[in-house]
């Protein structure tokens, strides 16, 4: 029989027993639906994690962190000055495999512009901070080497700071405006663009479209948001930070020996990652006078862990969907077996007029594949609907993503399940003896 004829016969049989067919499809509908939904959810999580990883920087970034001094070195811990600006200067001078160096000094300060005042973190930075923190400017410029050298009173602010302290002003209008940090005037020289995840962006657009933007705009503040820190940044030159706010606290301190809060490095070339770390370690051994009180924290392990978490999530989701698909397949097998028992005489008649075993086999198989495919189609619709409902009812951090590949994969699975569950009934039907099948009552 031609494939078209097979399909036609199969569809006729399916439509002749609508309720029974629907019942046998149900398992596949649920299986494919959950497959689509879990794939969309895990893909959403994956995207979210990757966006997060990208925002905090890639593998080429290294953090110099403090470490507990081990027992043997306890006696001379005070020999080491800890992480200071000197570290950054020495690394810059003696570690050519390091391309960017970003020391930071933090200050919790009172910020005010006119009537509006609030507390916020202020960070003193070097120009390399723009690369280390992956900042992008919307307007103006970043802190330059000149700013650091002259300890200018320039400040670069995040988008949320702009909207909070300069309400109603655009980024361009904010440039040149004055902002007081602990009462000391700074001039805004740059404004960053708004950092947000795809989902927040979409949410904002939806809300804006509904004209309720103002009511919900701040809602993301209550949830964990990896980009919030960047949106609320207030950055000034590191030298200005020291001279304005840190000098004089300890009369003996000079700028080079005061402790810094963060030291981020960027390796020039990932191919020479180990060597670069070695150069840094050598430099720091000198500045820390041999005291092992620092650690080089790479993101490799962290990223590996995230990747394996993604893989595990995918795996468990896939497993659940696979189980429900198999259960659906068993349902089809069951109903096909009942259906061929009911049609033994029909099979006998078909054989008597010349159907070969293979024709009967293909007919039953086409039927189970058709049932499974129809179920799969309904399942795809159900899955998409489920994802839409999930987005509306329980918005998660990571927006589920339905991709063409997951739909194709589901169709492939449906065909596979249909074929697998049809094989046994089809074999059983094709092996009937024509004479006894004809006589079957």
């Amino acid at each position: 029989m031609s494939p078209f004829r097979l399909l036609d016969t199969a569809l006729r049989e399916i439509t002749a027993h609508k309720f029974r067919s629907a019942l046998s499809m149900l398992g596949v509908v649920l299986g494919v639906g959950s497959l689509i939904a879990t794939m969309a959810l895990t893909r959403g999580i994956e995207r979210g994690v990757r966006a997060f990883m990208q925002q905090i920087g890639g593998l080429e970034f290294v953090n110099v962190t403090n470490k507990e001094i081990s027992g043997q070195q306890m006696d001379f811990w005070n020999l080491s000055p800890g992480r200071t600006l000197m570290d950054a200067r020495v690394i810059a001078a003696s570690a050519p495999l390091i391309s960017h160096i970003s020391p930071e000094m933090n200050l919790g300060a009172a910020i005010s512009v006119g009537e509006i005042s609030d507390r916020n973190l202020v960070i003193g930075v070097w120009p390399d901070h723009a690369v280390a923190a992956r900042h992008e400017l919307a307007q103006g410029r970043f802190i330059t080497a000149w700013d650091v050298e002259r300890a200018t009173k320039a400040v670069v602010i995040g988008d949320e700071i702009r909207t909070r302290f300069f309400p109603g002003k655009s980024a361009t209008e904010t440039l040149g405006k004055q902002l007081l940090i602990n009462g000391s005037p700074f001039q805004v020289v740059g404004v960053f663009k708004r950092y947000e995840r795809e989902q927040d962006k979409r949410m904002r657009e939806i809300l804006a479209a509904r004209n309720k933007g103002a009511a919900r705009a701040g809602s993301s503040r209550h949830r964990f948001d990896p980009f919030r820190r960047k949106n609320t940044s207030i950055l000034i030159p590191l030298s200005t930070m020291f001279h304005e706010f840190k000098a004089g606290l300890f009369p003996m301190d000079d700028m080079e020996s005061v402790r810094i809060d963060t030291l981020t490095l960027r390796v020039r070339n990932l191919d020479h990652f180990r060597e670069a770390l070695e150069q840094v370690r050598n430099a720091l051994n000198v500045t820390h006078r041999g005291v092992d009180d620092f650690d080089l924290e790479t993101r490799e392990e962290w990223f590996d862990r995230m990747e394996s978490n993604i893989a595990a999530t995918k795996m468990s989701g896939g497993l659940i969907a696979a189980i429900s698909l198999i259960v659906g397949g068993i349902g089809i097998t069951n109903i096909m077996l009942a259906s061929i028992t009911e049609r033994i005489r029909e099979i006998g008649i078909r054989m008597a007029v010349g159907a070969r075993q293979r024709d009967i086999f293909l007919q039953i198989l086409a039927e189970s594949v058709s049932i499974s495919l129809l179920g799969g189609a309904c399942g795809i619709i159900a899955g998409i609907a489920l994802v839409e409902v999930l987005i509306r009812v329980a918005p998660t951090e990571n927006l589920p993503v339905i991709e063409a590949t997951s739909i194709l994969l589901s169709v492939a699975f449906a065909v596979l399940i249909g074929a697998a569950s049809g094989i046994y009934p089809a074999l059983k039907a094709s092996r009937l003896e024509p004479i006894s099948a004809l006589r079957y009552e």
Partner: protein
Amino acid sequence: MDAAVLEDITKVYRVGDQEIHALAGVSLTIPEGDFVAITGPSGSGKSTLMHLLGCLDTPTAGRMEICGKDLSSANSDTLARARNREIGFVFQAFNLLPKLDVVGNVELPLLYSNVSTRERRERAIAAAQSVGLGERLKNRPAQLSGGQCQRVAIARALVNNPRILFGDEPTGNLDSQTGRMVLDLFRSLNEGGRTIVLVTHDPKVAATARRIIEIHDGRISREYSP
């Protein structure tokens, strides 16, 4: 060429430990264009003989040639092909598919031979018209009388233009008048040159044939012309 040649055919069925000799040495030649009736009491082996002649089964021993092909130990595909090309069946219980209309039932054998959709339709409609069902092409078996059903079955048996037409008690489910009509149809088909084999226990039906073969206990006991 002879339509069917059987030489010393035996057929043994195994039911549990018991062996049942349904046919015990049957030799028979049916020339092309013959009209044969096979009769005998139930259990005599006449149905088994018809199943062999109809390529639904193979003999346990002996030589069987149908339409010039030796099918003594043919596999199921070869038998299916022979049934499809050379043989048409008309059963006592009509054996129509209730879900298909008249055309659908008549065209069934053509589904299993390489015939295009258009040609299949045309041939099925022509066959249905030739048995006088041109007006009922879209009806399903449940909407037809017994006689009409049997005519659909005959049209189905003829649609592939087979050499041999088998009737297995073709009038058994029909009243005598409709039965006579069906037998008349068989006789006119035979006059047109087709080989016909009827299996029946009804002497009146058997009398339609040119040659009557009586079976007893798996052997041919008598052969005569009415």
